C-alpha cells in the first residue's frame, strides 16, 4: 500500500513489527540471559547448531547483543514478545543483506517451552514483511536441518519453499544428515 499521508506513514510504522500473536521489539539487556540459556539448551542445540556443546554462561551473549544492536543496514535482529502478556519468546533476525543482490538470511530461536503453538510462524511472517517492506530485500533464505520437520512446516506456512538439499552436510547423533536451503522471493510473497 502506498504511503501518501502522515497518518498512513504512522500506521505503517505502528503495524510493521506487529503480528497476529507476537510483536518484534528491540533487544533489551534483560532478554540476553534467557536467550542465551535457550540456545545452550540440549533440546535446542540439535535443531540450531547440530553440535551439542553447551558453553559456560556468558559465552554466547556477545553474538546476541551484536545481532540485536541494529547499527548497520546489512543486518537486523529483534526480540520476539507475546502480544498478550509481553513475555519474551525468542529472537529473530536477518543477516547478510547487501547490494546488488538484496538477499538476506533469516534465523530464529525460540523458548523450547513455547514451540508448537504457531508463535514462531507468526514471528517469521513479521520478519519477512520487515525484510521486504523496510529493507528492500528481493530474497530471504534460511537453512534448516532436514530432520527438523516442525520448523520446516512452520517455514512452509510462512511461504518458504525448499530450493536445495545439501546432502550429508551436517553430523548429529553419529551420522550425516541433510540440510535444506529454503527461500521466499519478493514476487512470491503475499502480505
Amino acid at each position: 500500500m502506498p504511503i501518501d499521508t502522515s497518518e498512513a506513514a504512522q500506521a505503517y510504522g505502528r503495524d510493521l513489527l506487529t503480528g497476529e500473536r507476537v510483536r518484534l521489539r528491540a533487544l533489551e539487556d534483560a532478554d540476553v540471559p534467557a536467550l542465551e540459556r535457550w540456545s545452550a539448551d540440549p533440546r535446542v542445540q540439535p535443531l540450531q547448531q547440530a553440535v551439542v556443546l553447551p558453553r559456560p554462561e556468558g559465552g554466547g551473549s556477545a553474538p546476541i547483543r551484536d545481532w540485536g544492536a541494529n547499527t548497520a543496514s546489512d543486518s537486523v535482529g529483534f526480540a520476539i514478545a507475546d502480544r498478550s502478556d509481553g513475555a519474551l519468546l525468542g529472537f529473530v533476525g536477518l543477516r547478510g543483506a547487501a547490494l546488488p543482490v538484496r538477499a538476506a538470511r533469516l534465523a530464529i530461536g525460540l523458548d523450547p517451552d513455547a514451540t508448537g503453538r504457531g508463535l514462531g510462524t507468526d514471528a517469521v511472517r513479521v520478519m519477512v514483511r520487515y525484510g521486504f517492506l523496510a529493507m528492500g530485500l528481493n530474497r530471504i533464505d534460511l537453512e534448516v536441518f532436514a530432520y527438523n520437520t516442525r520448523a520446516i512446516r512452520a517455514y512452509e506456512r510462512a511461504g518458504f519453499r525448499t530450493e536445495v538439499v545439501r546432502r550429508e552436510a551436517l553430523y548429529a547423533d553419529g551420522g550425516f544428515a541433510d540440510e535444506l536451503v529454503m527461500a521466499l522471493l519478493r514476487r512470491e510473497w503475499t502480505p
Partner: protein
Amino acid sequence: MSAPRSTDEAVRYGEGILVGARVRLRPLREDDLARIDAWWQDPEQQALQQGAIRPRPAGTNTDLFRRWSANEGRAGAGFSVEALEDGALVGHVTLWGATLPERDAHVAIMLAPDRVGHGLGSDAMRVLVRWAFLVLGLNRVQLEVFAHNDRARRAYARAGFVEEGVRREAAFIGGAFADEVVMSVLRADWAGDPG
C-alpha cells in the same frame, strides 16, 4: 582405497596424489601471482565467477591468493594448476571451510581464459576432490556456480559433482537477478581415482 601398506606404497601415494591426467596441482609461486591477479580482475572472468564486474587495481588480490595458498593448517588449501603438456600455469584452485564433525568443504577454481575448453578444469577439480577425500578425510565437497555458466556446470559434472538445487535470484548480473546452482560430490558416490 586403503592406507599404504609399505614404504613404496606410501611414496607412490605422495607422488601421485596431486597429479591428474592433464594437470598437476602445485604450491603457489610468487611469479604466479601477477597472472592470477589479472585473471581475477578480468571483466569476462568476473561475469562467470563473481557476478559484480568491478576490476580493482593490479596487485590488489595478491595477498588474498597468498593467504588462500599458504596451506597452513588442515581447514583448507590453495594450489596453482599446471598443465602437464607444457608446464604452464593454467589456473588456481582453492578448498576452504573444512570442519569437524561435518567433514564438508567448499571448492572453487579459476582458469586462464586462453586455456578453457580443453578439459583442464575438470581434471584439476578431479584431483582436488581426490585430495579432499584421501588426504583430508572429507565426506562432502561443495561448490556454487551461476546457472548461466553452462560450460563450468558441464565440467563440474564430468568431475563427479551432482546438482543439488538452485538458489533462485541469489546473484545480480547484467541488470537482473540470476540463479545459482549448488553442486556437491559425496565420498560414498565418488568414483575413485581419476584416470
